[in-house]
């Protein structure tokens, strides 16, 4: 039941009410119709029977009148009439008996038919007596038999007719009672329907109002929430607008940066290519330098070789000098000994002493010369040693220089390769920067779209805000309405 919608509840309530009304109407109509039909049929039957009874009574009288007329005048035609009437009356009585509903009526009407037959027998005997001319006998039969039977029969018929009339009156009374009952029933059902209807209406109103109040309060809170949300959304949209603006500016800046990057990357690629060429030249120069260094080294080694040869020759000179020195020493000794001999010879040795002195002087000079030569040779040796060491150092230095130059060449080669790689990288950077540029353009476009969407969103938000405001007002009005109605119910 609680899952039913309000419309469904209302429809159900009305359906119940309509069903009640229909039931009431049908019940009332059926009751009235049955009452009326019963009444009509019963009344018709009773009245017909009363009328027929009356007919039988009158027919009996007419039969008696015709009999009397025959008796008095001997009119045969009256006899025919009497027989005709008698037959009709008997027929009526038989009909009444056959259509009787109670045992009393059956027995009563059977008795009446028997008496009529008895009367007829008596009347026939009187008629035969009359026909035979025995008037007196016919009058006697009439007065002694026919009249009493007739009197009894008539009284019986009168009673029967009276009973039939009474019965009709009873039926009418019963019908009246039935109709009264029907009216009561109708009234009762109507009142019950009214009460039930009121109850249903109350329940409906209550249910609807409760749900409506809940819904309205929910609506109010929801609308206020929507208002708050739209306010937030509005401020958010403003922030979004700012952010979009900043993003667009940033994207522009990035775009400029990327343009700069592109330019720089192009320049770098160009420069790297040129520098790679330069490095190739540098490598060639380094190779030539290495070759030159190798030649210089070879020259220096040759030089060292020559210097060593010179040094060895100088050594040979030294040996010669040593020999000369020895000669000088011996000359000296010779001069000393010559001097000794001259001294021993006395005056005779004077001239010899001069020669000895001269020899000594020569020896001394030779010694000095050899000493000088030795000094010079020592210097030459020192110089040679220095020169050889210098040459060695030069060779080492040239080796080191060659190694360094080779390293430099290698470095330049690697540099060249790196430069080529740099040029490639710069090329890739260029391509990337161009892609980036395209991407940033797309970003800018997207930002434009977002801005438009945001503006639309803002407008929508304003509309939503307006709608929420209206909804709020509506909910307040609804709340008032519901509360007023509720108050009215409460008062009721």
């Amino acid at each position: 039941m609680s899952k039913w919608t309000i419309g469904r509840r209302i429809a159900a309530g009305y359906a119940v009410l309509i069903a009640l009304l229909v039931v009431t109407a049908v019940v009332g109509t059926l009751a009235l119709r049955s009452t009326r039909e019963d009444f009509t049929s019963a009344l018709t039957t009773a009245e017909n029977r009363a009328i027929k009874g009356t007919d039988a009574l009158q027919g009996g009288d007419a039969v008696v009148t015709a009999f009397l007329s025959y008796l008095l005048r001997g009119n045969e035609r009256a006899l025919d009439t009497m027989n005709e009437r008698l037959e009709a009356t008997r027929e009526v009585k038989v009909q009444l008996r056959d259509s009787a509903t109670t045992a009393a009526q059956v027995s009563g009407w059977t008795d009446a038919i028997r008496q009529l037959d008895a009367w007829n027998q008596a009347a026939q005997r009187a008629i035969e007596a009359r026909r035979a001319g025995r008037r007196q006998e016919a009058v006697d039969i009439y007065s002694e038999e026919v009249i009493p039977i007739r009197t009894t029969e008539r009284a019986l018929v009168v009673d029967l007719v009276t009973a039939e009339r009474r019965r009709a009156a009873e039926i009418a009374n019963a019908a009246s009672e039935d109709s009264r009952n029907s009216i009561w029933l109708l009234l009762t059902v109507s009142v019950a329907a009214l009460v039930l209807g009121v109850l249903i209406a109350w329940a409906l109103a209550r249910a609807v109002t409760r749900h409506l109040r809940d819904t309205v309060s929910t609506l109010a809170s929801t609308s206020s929430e929507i208002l708050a949300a739209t306010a937030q959304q509005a401020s958010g949209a403003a922030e979004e607008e700012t952010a979009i603006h900043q993003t667009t500016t940033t994207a522009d800046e990035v775009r400029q940066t990327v343009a700069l990057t592109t330019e720089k990357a192009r320049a770098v690629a160009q420069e790297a290519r040129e520098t790679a060429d330069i490095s190739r030249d540098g490598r060639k120069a380094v190779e030539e330098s290495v070759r030159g260094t190798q030649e210089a080294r070879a020259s220096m080694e040759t030089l060292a070789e020559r210097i060593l040869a010179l040094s060895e020759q100088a050594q040979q000179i030294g040996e010669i000098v040593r020999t000369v020195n020895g000669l000088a020493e011996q000359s000296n000794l010779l001069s000393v000994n010559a001097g000794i001999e001259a001294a021993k010879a006395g005056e005779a040795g004077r001239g010899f002493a001069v020669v000895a002195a001269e020899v000594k002087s020569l020896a001394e000079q030779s010694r000095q010369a050899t000493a000088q030569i030795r000094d010079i040779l020592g210097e030459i040796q020192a110089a040679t040693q220095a020169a050889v060491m210098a040459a060695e150092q030069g060779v080492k230095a040239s080796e080191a220089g060659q190694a360094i130059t080779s390293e430099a060449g290698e470095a330049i080669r690697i540099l060249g390769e790196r430069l080529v790689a740099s040029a490639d990288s710069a090329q890739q950077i260029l391509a990337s920067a161009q892609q980036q540029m395209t991407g940033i353009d797309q970003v800018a476009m997207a930002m434009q779209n977002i801005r438009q969407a945001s503006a639309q969103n803002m407008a929508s938000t304003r509309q939503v805000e307006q709608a929420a405001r209206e909804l709020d007002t509506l909910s307040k009005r609804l709340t008032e309405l519901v509360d007023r109605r509720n108050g009215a119910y409460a008062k009721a």
Partner: protein
Amino acid sequence: MTAFDWDGARRRLEAARLALADEPSPEEERALLEERARALALAPEREPDGPWQDVVVFTLGGERFAVEAGQVAEAVELDAPTPLPGTPDFLLGVINHRGRVLGVYDLRERLGRPRDGELAHAVAVEAGGLCFAIAVEAVEETTRERLDRTLVTLVDVEALAADPRLRIEDE
């Protein structure tokens, strides 16, 4: 680094080549002759003064000594003398001099000189009937000296010969 002076080097090499040539230059020749003339001219100047003596001058322990030329047999080079076992340090050994065996003496300790120079020569002397050799560092010259006016110390060979320590190798 300044560039090497190759032209200068070539000039110097040329000069060296010229210097090694056989003929001395005229200037050198003239200078040599003048020096010799001076040396010869100086000798007579000393002649008039004092008692002159012929001596053989040698160096021993860095000092100049002399012995009388008349006592000297000969100045010789001192090759390795043959050492004699069981003799004092100052007897360096014996040498063969013209068929005679001479003891070689180191007089530096006796003369109060340090024993640090190489004794390359020997002076064979005769005194007091003894013949022996004095090991010396260098024999300088035979000259006439006025011994009272020079710094040369005259070694008294007679006294040496009379020294009983030198008798060791006396036969």
